[in-house]
């Protein structure tokens, strides 16, 4: 790779979102802007080899891409536009040169992750437009065909234009409506990578790295938002412990059997510091779901052994989380903390309540949790039935092997 190629790769990695975001605002058309930025990168290869690498590569690329936009509009003036122009509120200064002002990228992120777009669309658009991955790359990461992913991205872009999703950064009072859609999209990128169910190890690592990068960018752009920091803390702590979740035979290892010596201490420290910052910033308010889950993750990460985990503190955090997110999945996870403090019988009563409500009828971890509690209570035949129920609800081969082993060990 020559120096020009290296400079272009750096510009792509570091400034793609910046460049695209600036050009989108100028072009008011996502496809047009994307094509123009792509063309600018191609043009740079030749031009930089001839004239040398410019002092401000990103600014050069923005200017070149804007020129391409103008050329295209002139050339196609007689043609009908496929989609209406993006709505760009007036009165916001155009940032010609990339600066420390982060708004350009935020505009792009909040547009790609508008709550009017479904989660899959938000994730695909974010990876395509904010991370600068090609459509085949995004398709590969989500193990779908290229035409499927292309159609998904096209549909999402069309919805942005036709529904009138504006290209702007929401104001502070709008964040409660808007931020969760951004955070859940980034979190899905991470969990998709974290899940052992699909794709090769390489794909999984690329997804978790992308998610952490995105969360990190967002914390830089919104340094005082506790939930943004909470998200980065949560995925950093999960990533720190991910090496021990699956053993060398591709089998799931439950938390209490994981080799804690292999956890990444540096990442745990970073994650724990972030948790503290998120909780401090939530002062006087109940922390949000990401900060709370991250705080629970920090307690697990810091405990020398499973038994020595600060269970009362874990339970207190689950109580808060259940208040903020009254979901049966949270209630189920909370039951594990109950079993550690009040014993398996008390936990089983809670799990049975959840089961009776019918809310998680097809959720294999409900049956698996029941089975584990029944096993602890010595009710072996009931435990066996529960493990069998869990097995019948699981298609993921790693989870199936784990449950099968548990069943055989009874």
């Amino acid at each position, binding site marked *: 790779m020559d120096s020009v190629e290296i400079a272009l790769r750096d510009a792509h990695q570091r400034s793609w979102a910046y460049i695209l975001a600036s050009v989108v605002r100028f072009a008011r058309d996502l496809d047009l802007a994307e094509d123009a930025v792509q063309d600018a990168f191609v043009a740079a290869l030749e031009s930089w080899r001839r004239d040398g690498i410019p002092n401000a590569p990103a600014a050069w690329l923005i200017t070149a891409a804007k020129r391409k936009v103008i050329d295209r509009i002139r050339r196609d003036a007689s043609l009908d536009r496929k989609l209406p122009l993006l709505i760009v509120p007036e009165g916001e200064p155009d940032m010609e040169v990339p600066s420390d002002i982060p708004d350009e990228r935020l505009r792009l992120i909040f547009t790609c992750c508008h709550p009017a777009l479904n989660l899959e669309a938000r994730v695909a658009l974010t990876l395509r437009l904010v991370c600068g991955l090609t459509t085949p790359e995004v398709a590969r990461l989500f193990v779908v065909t290229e035409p499927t992913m292309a159609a998904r991205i096209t549909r999402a872009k069309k919805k942005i234009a036709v529904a009138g999703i*504006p290209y702007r950064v929401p104001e502070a009072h709008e964040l409660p409506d808007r931020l969760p859609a951004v955070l859940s999209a980034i979190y899905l990128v991470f969990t998709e990578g974290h899940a052992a169910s699909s794709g090769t190890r390489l794909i999984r690592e690329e997804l978790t790295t992308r998610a952490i990068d995105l969360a990190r960018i967002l914390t830089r752009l919104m340094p005082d938002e506790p939930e943004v920091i909470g998200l980065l803390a949560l995925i950093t702590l999960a990533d720190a412990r991910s090496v021990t979740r699956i053993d060398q035979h591709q089998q799931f290892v439950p938390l209490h059997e994981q080799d804690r010596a292999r956890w990444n201490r540096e990442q745990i420290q970073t994650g724990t510091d972030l948790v503290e910052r998120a909780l401090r910033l939530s002062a006087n308010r109940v922390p949000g779901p990401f900060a709370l889950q991250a705080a629970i993750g920090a307690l697990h990460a810091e405990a020398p052994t499973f038994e020595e985990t600060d269970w009362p503190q874990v339970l207190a955090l689950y109580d808060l989380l259940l208040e903020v997110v009254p979901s049966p999945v949270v209630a189920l996870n909370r039951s594990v903390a109950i079993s550690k403090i009040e014993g398996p019988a008390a936990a089983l009563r809670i799990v049975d309540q959840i089961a009776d409500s019918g809310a998680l009828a097809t959720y294999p971890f409900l049956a698996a949790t029941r089975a584990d509690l029944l096993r602890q209570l010595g009710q072996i035949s009931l435990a066996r039935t529960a493990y069998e129920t869990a097995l019948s609800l699981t298609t993921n081969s790693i989870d199936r092997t784990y449950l099968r082993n548990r069943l055989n060990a009874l």
Partner: protein
Amino acid sequence: MKYMLMIYDRQELYDTATPEQMETAMTQHADFYRHMSEHFPGFTSERLQVPNTATSLTQNARGDWLITDGPFPDVKESIGGFYVFDANDLDAAIDAAKHCPAWVGLELRPVFTHE
């Protein structure tokens, strides 16, 4: 952009609502109506009769019409009324819609316009 705000209703809610609840809803709609006509150009609105007054028409492959009673499709929710208004963008339309009373839910849809 022109948006249509559709109000979803359920017949059973009309059947079981107390006079006070109906009164409250009417006052809220009146307030919303006033707010919208003051702030949003191109504003228009209709309240529809209750869902069980609806008649549905479907056409088979041969072109024969089938006329049935009730809203289309046959689900619990149906459209109880609508507001049409101009807003700068979807976020402005969402802000506006938040002032509208909603027993069941609301749907915002951009209106197709010829440039």
